[in-house]
């Protein structure tokens, strides 16, 4: 996994709540067996007109000022619905590495950390202030410092955020989750021995 590095990037505004994973990546693009190449299908049904090719000029992410954005600022309950990891794959492949909202759906939230995406939870007031700064100055660049757990803006906002210590370390170092867990192989094996004794019917009879 790519380590997450402090950056200053364009913040795009998506003033919608309950953005679900069916919008992030519609199901007709989930048939691939690879992890890559989903960025062109991100928000497909909103992003393109009926011909499926022409960019919809009314869709916020199509604004020239938001091109190249790495930070997405969106309304509450972002990423609700299906567990599809295709959603964070598409978001990362499109170029975002940070999403700021007041709340995220559980599965989506944990999927982000597996894909070098930092989901940041802020308060209603903080979100409103960030959104207002973008609306007033489209193309504005925010700075996200995961090490310091801080988002700062040219408008003078400085917002501290919480992040689980282990997830923070994993993002900063680009750790391989499975390799980390396998360091506990001894504990897993010991648990399995006890599990077999306690619930023998769940194991193949030798």
């Amino acid at each position: 996994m790519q380590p997450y590095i402090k950056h200053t990037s364009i913040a795009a505004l998506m003033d919608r709540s309950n953005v679900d994973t069916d919008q992030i990546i519609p199901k007709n693009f989930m048939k691939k067996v690879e992890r890559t190449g989903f960025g062109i299908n991100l928000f497909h049904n909103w992003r393109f007109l009926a011909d499926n090719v022409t960019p919809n000029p009314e869709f916020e992410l199509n604004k020239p000022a938001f091109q190249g954005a790495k930070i997405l600022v969106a309304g509450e309950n972002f990423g609700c619905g299906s567990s599809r990891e295709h959603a964070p794959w598409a978001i990362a492949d499109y170029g975002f590495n940070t999403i700021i909202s007041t709340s995220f759906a559980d599965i989506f939230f944990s999927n982000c950390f597996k894909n070098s995406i930092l989901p940041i939870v802020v308060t209603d007031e903080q979100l409103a202030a960030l959104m207002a700064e973008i609306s007033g100055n489209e193309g504005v660049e925010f700075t996200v410092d995961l090490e310091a757990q801080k988002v700062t803006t040219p408008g003078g906002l400085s917002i501290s955020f919480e992040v689980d210590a282990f997830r923070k370390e994993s993002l900063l170092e680009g750790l391989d989750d499975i390799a980390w867990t396998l360091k506990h192989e001894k504990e897993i094996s010991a648990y399995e021995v006890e599990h077999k004794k306690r619930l023998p019917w769940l194991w193949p009879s030798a």
Partner: protein
Amino acid sequence: MTRTMYEKIWDANLVHEPEAGSPLLFVDRHLMHEVTSPQAFEGLRLQNRKVRNVHSILGTIDHCVPTKDRFNIVDVIAKKQVETMTANCEENEINLYGMDSNQNGVIHIVVPEHGFVHPGMVVCCGDSHTATHGAFGALAFGIGTSEVEHVMATQTLQQKKAKTMLVKVEGKLPAFSTAKDIALAIIAKTGTAGGTGYVMEFAGNTITDLTMEGRMTLCNMAIEAGARAGLVAPDQVTFDYLEGKEFAPKGDHWPVAVEYWKSLRSDEGAEFDAVIELKAEDIAPQVSWGTSPEQVISVTGLVPSPSDFTNDVKSQACASALKYMALDAGQKITDIHIDVVFIGSCTNGRIEDFRAAAELLKGKKVADGVQAFAVPGSFPVKVQAEKEGLDKIFIDAGWEWRDPGCSMCLAMNGDELKDGQRSASTSNRNFEGRQGKGGRTHLVSPAMAAAASVAGHFVDIRDWK
């Protein structure tokens, strides 16, 4: 110290809790389908890792399967996904109810049919509707593909402990109200984010009166309230359902297992982080009117107006939903006309669902211009329905009787709404475009869907002839 059922399952499955890092939770059962697993197998191959406990996995192919002419998958990418699933399972000797198995069907229908999930288990699948299996008193939840790979390699998940919410429903359900209506009424109350960070335990005499299939429908939709998982305490209904099934404990193991399962229920006085209560008497048949499962109202209601919401976000969401759904504020729900009716999915694709719908369809005909199709959740459901003659009732009423699959719940297999078409659907999500780009979905119970197919619009089935 008293513990909730969630805490008991957590404690029993906790492998290790290091000082720094994440707790590791043991996964008893891992369910799999073709859409969210190929990249996980590829990840294992690239790292030269093996599947740790093959016996813990059960797979099916369901999302991309055509419900007519099922072996003829026209979409080449979908076809490759199906072939990849088959090959991955063969290579790793995983138990797969594949395309040519007479046990094939939707994963969350197939798994209970075989008794593969038991109370107290931790169950996961790359699919949010894994919540279904909470009906057995198992902690069952959806995971992403990276976690699918993690479970295959380690048999564990890195998990943070969730908060607990008790959802208590007491009283007798009105006639024609079902588990689906309970689920929708709960979501209307909590909102789609109300359960975020929580595991919900459904309790109260309305819940214990539900059959296993009803409990599955209810837990299936816990995810639509944002909950990580839903749980129902195992009881005699659960044990009777499991006994004798293929993967259920046998012989001397059975009484030992039942004794253990009985110990799982939340202790008297156990504390929950949140409690909500509903009265069953208040739950009339529900119909969703918007583009989120929380945008739902009883069949006797009117389509709300943005001004009915004091919360800005909800008001804005209402306005945007009315526009997408082409509905007017104040319109009677029973005046909404539909084009397509779908009965099926992991929410409502079980035998009791088809029985309830058939009861209303007997001797009736589908309204002009309405297309209606029934998609059993699995081949065993289909075979059972045909044994009972239900297929004839559907066909005589002008319905199509199809083969199993996820079908128009998420429209990956070619069964989909055309732009602007409106459906009455027994599935679980009414998101924009969920059933086809530009399609408009109304979530209802099977009986409500059946009646709508005949009337051409929603009807209050309680006084419908």
